[in-house]
């Protein structure tokens, strides 16, 4: 659906001490986002996320490489490609002098939607984003969150098969964020491909089907979400909790070959370690531990969150 081939964007900043003036915002990105995916792009500020999204929408011309959307070369046929894209920028303004419905009506006509379908689509977008009470309100009077919803309503208005959303949750309250997640899932179920960036990594972790981590213009991880979440992990991280500190748990575990990186916690009643075996092996270890007299009261597998993976992989260096 979306294909990036050797996508490179080079631009200039003023050189400062120790830093060159020439910057590669994206460095030969190769990416294929399949149909009906929710693809998350994460990275620190200045990693090149917005630049990538703008090149996908045809708003920036790449220095090298190309982008195709639905098989259409975005640089060569921008208008044909843009027909398939709904775009939301990270920082944007709306036309304050217009009413909510007028704003959507303008874009419905600008997207050259079928005249007969426009009223219905406006009603749908307004209802989907919970903007019914504000339908006839001037945009100037809307709150930040409401304006963000209206921006999303505009992006989905013409029913594009691809949504490119740059920080869509920014400015939304927790309830609206939850509703946005549900909406994106619903749109995805309805067949939309969604290319999204967000700093709320827990949201991406919950809804994305695939993910890429971008660092200084390069992809450092890309793949299905479950694979990205498990990548590079030497083993499973497990915590065992004892009822009382009457057993030398850390020493006992440290002597076993399949166990590594043993870290006692707090008052020595619990230990976190990395385990190289599967479920059966872990059950065996726990059984042996109980047999050895350890008062085991809890066993828990610890999964790394996306935020932790991101912190581990990203230097956080801004270009």
């Amino acid at each position, binding site marked *: 659906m979306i294909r990036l*081939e*050797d996508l*490179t964007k*080079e*631009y*200039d900043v*003023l*050189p400062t001490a120790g830093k060159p*003036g*020439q910057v*590669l915002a994206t*460095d*030969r990105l*190769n990416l294929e986002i399949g149909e009906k995916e929710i693809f998350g792009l994460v990275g620190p500020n200045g990693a090149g996320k917005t630049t990538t999204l*703008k090149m996908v*929408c*045809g*708003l*920036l*011309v790449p*220095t*090298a*490489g190309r982008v195709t959307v639905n098989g259409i070369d975005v640089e060569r046929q*921008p*208008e044909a490609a*843009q*027909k398939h*894209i709904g*775009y939301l*920028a990270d*920082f*944007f*303004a*709306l*036309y304050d*002098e*217009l009413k909510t419905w*007028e704003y959507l009506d*303008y*874009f419905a*006509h*600008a*997207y*050259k939607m079928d005249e007969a379908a426009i009223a219905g689509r406006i009603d749908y977008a307004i209802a989907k984003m919970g903007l019914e009470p504000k339908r006839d309100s001037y945009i100037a009077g809307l709150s930040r969150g409401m304006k963000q919803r209206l921006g999303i309503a*505009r992006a989905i208005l013409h029913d594009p098969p691809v949504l490119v959303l740059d920080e869509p949750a920014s400015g939304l309250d927790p309830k609206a964020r939850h509703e946005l997640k549900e909406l994106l899932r619903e749109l995805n179920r309805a067949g939309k491909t969604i290319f999204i960036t967000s700093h709320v990594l827990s949201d991406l972790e919950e809804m994305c089907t695939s993910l*890429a981590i971008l660092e200084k213009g*390069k*992809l*450092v*991880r*890309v*793949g299905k979400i479950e*694979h*990205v979440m*498990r*990548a*590079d992990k030497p083993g499973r991280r497990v915590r065992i909790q004892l009822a009382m500190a009457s057993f030398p748990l850390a020493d006992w575990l440290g002597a076993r070959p399949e166990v590594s990186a043993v870290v006692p916690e707090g008052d020595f009643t619990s230990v976190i370690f990395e385990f190289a075996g599967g479920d059966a092996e872990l059950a065996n270890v726990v059984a042996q531990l109980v047999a050895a007299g350890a008062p085991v009261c809890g066993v828990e597998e610890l999964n790394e969150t996306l935020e932790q993976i991101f912190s581990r992989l990203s230097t956080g260096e801004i270009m």
Partner: protein
Amino acid sequence: MDLFSNPELIRSVRAQLRWGRMISVAAICAVLSLVVGYALAHSGPPGQWGMQLLQIALGTQAVALVLGGSIACLNAIHREKEMNTFDFQRVTRLTPWELAVGKLFGAPVVVYFAVLCLMPAALVGAIVGGARPTMVAVAYVILLLGSITMHSFALVISLFHQRGTNTAAVLLLIILLWGSGVGIGHRFMFELGALSPFASISVADETSWLLSPPVAKDLSPVPDSFSRPDVFFGLRFHHVPVLLVLYITFSAWFLLAVTRNIKRDPSAYELYTPQQSLALLVFVNVLMLGFYRWGGSSIFSNTPMEGLQQQSFFLWTNLGLFFVLGLTLVRNRDRVRRRLREMGDAASSWFAALWPLPYVFVGMLLVGVAAVAMIHGHRNPKSEWDFALASFRMLFVALWLARDLLYLQWMNLTRVKRPLTMGFLYLIVFYVCTTVAFVSLGFYDSPSGQAITANFAPSAVFDLSEKEWAGNEMPWTLALLSQLAVAGIFAYLHRQKLLELAPSPAIAPAAESPLPTVV
């Protein structure tokens, strides 16, 4: 998509013409019309006050439409960029033409409404004053088309306007307004009436379409009048059709610049293609040569112009025009990088290092030859004229331009903030300093001194006459060669920049793209 269903126009109408605002504007116009009409009605006979009312109404409409509308268009795109709403328009399916036309008529929609509100006063004035209906209609056509031309130009400025250049943008607009107004009242260099839309105010008073008979060539600036024909390559035309044709053609040129860029990435903006730019300058030169008053005097004296003086006028004008053309053609780092990646070594060859000379230099020679040929044919036989010297001057100015444009092209590839602006400012500082130094050292007092100054600040070439040329051929030829040498140095520096910007092995497209860690 017709104009009235253009979404961009409808958006502007909805945003700007709410009931409250419409009522306010209509009320102000009505009060103004009534007060002025009442005051005039008591000042003289109906025929007189009617025409006065028409002129005042038309004048107010012209000021509102030309100035107010231009200011609205000047902000139309620039403001959207500042608000970050422009990208959303760029990703819609509106064609560049639809977007440009929507902005052209949408941005000044309040002004159009105010003009409509003043129409009753103008019509009452026209009826009471007994104005000829065709003349009133023509006055409005001139006003409308003239305003559209100004608005189109303001849109071009708005599109290319960068942050922090507001003053320059307004100045450009003022220059165009002033330029179009030159000639109101008198004709100087051209046998062409005033181009300003404000000329429509006087058209409404006219009663006859008849042209005045041809008169013997008049040296001094002549009073302009509605009956005086415009003369284009010896053919006499009424000013109204000439004006309308010029408005339409220049609007088309301005709108071409807007439509070919409005949906582009700003870093890839290009006013016109090199061929279109050249065509525009050839078009302007055809107009200048066609309408030129060959028998006229200079603006500052009543003496007939010498052939070399006439050439100086064309050289100066084309130096300015081609300098602007060169500025639009110089490539920025972004464009150079793309060319280097697309074309490889060809984009950093010696020929590439001569950019933008192929168009500018050839164009300058082309129009220079045309001017020399026209002067040769039309000059006063007694005036000073030397074909070889005229050709030398033309070549000299072309090389001077080449030298400065190669310098600016090189500067534009250096990594500083606003390199082109910086380069332009350095150029101004260089010319001011060298001129001050040469004046204080008395170099301009002797013909040989002038030839020396021409190595650095070649403006002395415009005053180079047969008298000054005689005996100074060698220093002038050396000055010509020095232009060539300096142009060569800047071409070399430009090439070094091109080589520097060529993709390094670290970022050059690899034979096989390295894949990220796919897990």
